[in-house]
């Protein structure tokens, strides 16, 4: 297993990939990708997610579903780093042409499931329409339980996303069925498109809500590597309850002018902004 310093170096590289993808496409969602990437780095490269990029359909693999699908640059950069797709494919993000069998891109604006004809290896569900990923994760977790497989299903939601009623239908169901092979992560970056989640429709308190629905809740700083590692370690030991990791994060984390600014939810940087961002990410301490 890699140490924290190595993981941070990976995250730095992935942040550069994210910004570069969005810059190249002149389209996409940097803010929510940057808030999520430290957690994804630990999940994929810190020894938690069980996967084999050479065999994306391996039956006993753990699943990760990015329910907040607009953070696809984060997922795609991870999939490239993990070896599911070649790094040069990242330049096809949001472009017409790419690496799908019919010549179109596999890096759609929002992730398409690896079984979809425009899907990307490693994507366990099609997402992008918010609110659906937790239910899909439940279906996969139920299927695994039914087949006596020991794989885990991880799913990441946005904080704005849980305003969707369907996520609470799912929360109730998972709690009822005591799905302890389900580990959800809530990227609590406090922002959604129109502004502050607390001001638009407040979702808090989260811990009490999920606990009331029968979940084991762990609260962490989603940029503190030790806390992320500890949370996943603990999550894998919990029995008889689904696990919700509420990760407090900073939207746009790592690029000073994007941090905590909802304007950077879904816009691409200009050339000047791109250069500053890359400069910061390359020189900044990790």
């Amino acid at each position, binding site marked *: 297993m890699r140490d924290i310093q190595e993981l941070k170096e990976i995250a730095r590289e992935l942040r550069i990939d994210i910004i570069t993808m969005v810059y190249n496409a002149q389209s996409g969602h940097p803010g929510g990708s940057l808030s999520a990437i430290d957690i994804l780095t630990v999940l994929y490269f810190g020894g938690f997610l069980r996967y084999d990029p050479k065999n994306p359909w391996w039956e006993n693999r753990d699943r990760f579903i990015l329910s907040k699908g607009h953070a696809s640059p984060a997922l795609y950069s991870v999939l490239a780093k993990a070896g599911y797709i070649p790094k040069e494919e990242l330049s096809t993000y949001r472009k017409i042409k790419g690496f799908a069998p019919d010549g179109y891109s596999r890096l759609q604006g929002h992730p398409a499931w690896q079984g979809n004809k425009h899907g990307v290896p490693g994507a366990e569900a*099609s997402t992008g*329409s918010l609110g*659906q990923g937790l*239910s*899909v994760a*439940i*279906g996969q977790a139920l*299927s695994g339980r*039914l087949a006596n497989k020991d794989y885990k299903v991880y799913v990441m939601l946005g904080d704005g996303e849980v305003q969707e009623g*369907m996520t609470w239908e799912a929360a109730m169901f998972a709690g009822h069925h005591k799905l302890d092979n389900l580990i959800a992560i809530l990227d609590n970056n406090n922002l959604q498109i129109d502004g502050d989640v607390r001001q638009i429709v407040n979702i808090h308190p989260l811990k009490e809500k999920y606990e009331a629905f029968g979940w084991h809740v762990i609260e962490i700083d989603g940029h503190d590597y030790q806390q992320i590692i500890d949370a996943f370690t603990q999550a894998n030991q919990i029995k008889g309850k689904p696990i919700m990791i509420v990760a407090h994060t900073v939207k746009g984390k790592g690029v000073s002018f994007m941090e905590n600014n909802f304007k950077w939810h879904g816009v691409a940087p200009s050339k000047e902004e791109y250069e500053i961002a890359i400069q910061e990410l390359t020189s900044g301490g990790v």
Partner: protein
Amino acid sequence: MAEKIDINKLPKKALRDTYGEVLVELGKIDPEMVVLDADLSESTRTHKFHVAYPDRFFNAGIAEQNLIGIAAGLAYTGRTVYASSFAIFIAGRPWEIIRQQIAYNKLNVKLVASHGGVSVGQDGASHQMNEDVSLMRTLPNMNVIVPADSVEMEKVLKKVHWIKEPFYIRMGREKFPVILPENYEFELGKGYVLKEGKDVSVIACGVMVSMALQAAYELEDEGIDVEVINMSSIKPIDKDLIIQTAKKTGAVVTSEEHSIIGGLGSAVAEVLAENYPTILVRHGVEDRFGISGPAWEVMEELGLSVSGLKKKIKEALTKKVR
């Protein structure tokens, strides 16, 4: 030509009863299969599967969006998934999730809806789903089947179970006359000529197929020779048969227990308009909501009856001679 019958004297069976029975049969031969419902499992008859295979049945509760999301998750892992509720709740409420998960990814999920159409009866407009075929037909990758009777329901299920694609299969609440012979074979994308005729063609689905047959027999006495086609496979639809019957009779009536907008009538209109423009009259629920009342009285009131269909057939014939 089929032997002349009186549909009112035929045995009747609810398609959902067949559904429950066939689910149990399929569950025995396919251990990967799972069934989901949303607190209507008695009504949809999925409870029969629940009793037979409790481990492989999941009740989502009154949460149809979650129902569809979970169905998708199960299908992503390679299982054959059935999900049922009333047509209004399974095709209406979670439509967008059906689109994003099941249709987009061509998942192996069979959405089997009961209580389609106005023959739901006394529950009234809130529960009478007349727009489901329209909503489902427009989705890429989605197959849409409206079986005519319980014989066809069984054949449909036993065929499409092995086709790893999304299906929407629509049943009514009531018992329908059993009009198809036991040796009938359902073929996806194929219509079935129940009675040949040369004056006018009726292309029908669901319970309207039996009414079309009855109308055809009654009109025989008036010297009108009606061709009757069961078009249970609405998507994919049997283009060739539609064009062929239009060429033969020169006038087509579509008949369905569904809005005349977007369903079978529209599907047939699309084929004819692009390939062989023909006099067309659409018989179905006009652009309106239903009303409460005993099932067959509501049907009669909305013109979904043998006499209502006969009027439409005559309207088509009048247009044809003009």
